[in-house]
């Protein structure tokens, strides 16, 4: 005897009918042979399975899960084949067979093996010699886009100019592995890679010079004023600051103060300042101040 009223007892229209039917069945009067459906204990996304049924006669089979909501006729007592295309997504599935009443089975489908990595790396440009400047998060997915939740070994490697800056093996937890690392001391491309089994993903972080270590300026009088320029501007690791970095020159004379912004070109920033008498010029870039230059 089957307790098949379980799936429909709340139906407002037919609830009383089912309640009555259940009471009759409870009393032992019910004689109809209602089938049951059974699922395998383990299923993997993208792989076909079969559900076994008991009973006899024909029934309607419903297969409900992520990405699928199917309906077809089946013969009870025979296996029901579920093709791989109906099991693409990991998650919870329901197999329901209905004759006069319905029986159901719920089972779970797990993700298959890693096929693709989502690899989030920040930032795209990082100043050199900064602690915890670079972070990466990796999530392994199977070929159907299911997140692989079982702990999976993950290798992270950071290389610059062919040399390994950092290498670490970790394991995913709840489908995620991550790292945080210091940036290197040399400007240039830093290759960040993550590998899960044979699947690899790479990102590039451009390491750029940090703030200038110091600013030294020199100047000389010209026909229309004075020309001031910096010595080659480098950070404290000796990396030249990239072209376009702004250096601000400030000139003070008896009439007041004036400023001019000049971009670094080939490591040097240069500006022309109009001034007739004695003048004091200083320079700044970011948080760094240069020397004062006095020109008579």
């Amino acid at each position, binding site marked *: 005897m089957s307790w098949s009223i379980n799936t429909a007892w709340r139906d407002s229209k037919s609830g009383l009918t089912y309640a009555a039917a259940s009471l009759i069945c409870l009393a032992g009067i019910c004689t109809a042979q209602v089938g049951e459906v059974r699922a395998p204990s383990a299923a993997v996304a993208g792989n076909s399975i079969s559900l076994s049924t008991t009973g006899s006669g024909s029934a309607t089979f419903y297969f409900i899960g*992520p990405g699928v909501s199917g309906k077809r006729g089946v013969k009870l007592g025979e296996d029901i084949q579920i093709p791989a295309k109906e099991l693409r997504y990991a998650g919870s599935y329901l197999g329901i067979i209905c004759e006069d009443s319905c029986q159901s089975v719920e089972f779970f489908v797990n993700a298959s093996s890693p096929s693709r990595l989502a690899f989030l790396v920040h930032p795209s440009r990082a100043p050199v010699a900064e602690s915890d400047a670079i972070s990466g998060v990796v999530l392994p997915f199977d070929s159907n886009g299911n997140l692989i939740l079982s702990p999976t070994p993950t290798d992270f490697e950071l290389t610059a100019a062919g040399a390994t800056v950092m290498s670490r093996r970790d394991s995913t937890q709840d489908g995620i592995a991550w790292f945080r690392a210091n940036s290197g001391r040399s400007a240039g491309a830093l290759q960040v890679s993550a590998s899960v089994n044979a699947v690899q993903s790479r990102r590039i972080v451009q390491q750029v010079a940090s703030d200038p270590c110091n600013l030294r300026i020199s100047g000389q009088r010209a026909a229309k004023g004075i020309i001031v320029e910096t010595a080659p501007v480098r950070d404290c690791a000796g990396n030249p600051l990239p072209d376009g970095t702004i250096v601000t020159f400030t000139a003070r004379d008896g009439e007041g103060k004036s400023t001019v912004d000049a971009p670094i070109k080939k490591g040097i920033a240069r500006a022309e300042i109009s001034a007739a008498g004695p003048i004091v010029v200083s320079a700044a870039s970011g948080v760094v101040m240069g020397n004062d230059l006095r020109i008579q």
Partner: protein
Amino acid sequence: MSRLNWWPMIGIAVSAIALLAPCYAADTDQAPNVTLESAKVGPRALEPLTERSVLRDYSFAWASLARALDSNSVEPLDGPFAGSAAEWLRDTVADQRRNGLSARYLNQTHRLEAVFYAPEGDLIELHDTADYDLQLRDGDKNIYNRHVTRHYVVLMTPSADRWVVRQLQAVPQF
């Protein structure tokens, strides 16, 4: 009519409201009840404003999911879902429509736990213990009607104006 004669009518009205209340409570459009626990999240802490946004957008996503699968329409899925989650939900709606089936997610309660918040704030993983009444219908025939508790692993990412659900994957347990 004397004042005393109103009492039976009031009693009938109150009884009628009490009887009808469960019908309204079972409406698909009822907002899901969502709570979020974020004390153990890492490596980045979840700011209160972000927490409120995640709660609001996750609740909206489930309300949209319920509407889409009840009405067999993909429109409610535009916005709150992206990636794999949007893909399988669209496939489900298309399959339901093809076979004349529909699903109702009623009386939803979601207990969320934030388990991972990326260092740069561009990804959050949640564990959702969801309770709801799941009702599956073939036309007008009820083929499944149960209160279920399901566990979902959820990935959300920020978009231009909201957090979107990218992954919604049911698991037997956390």
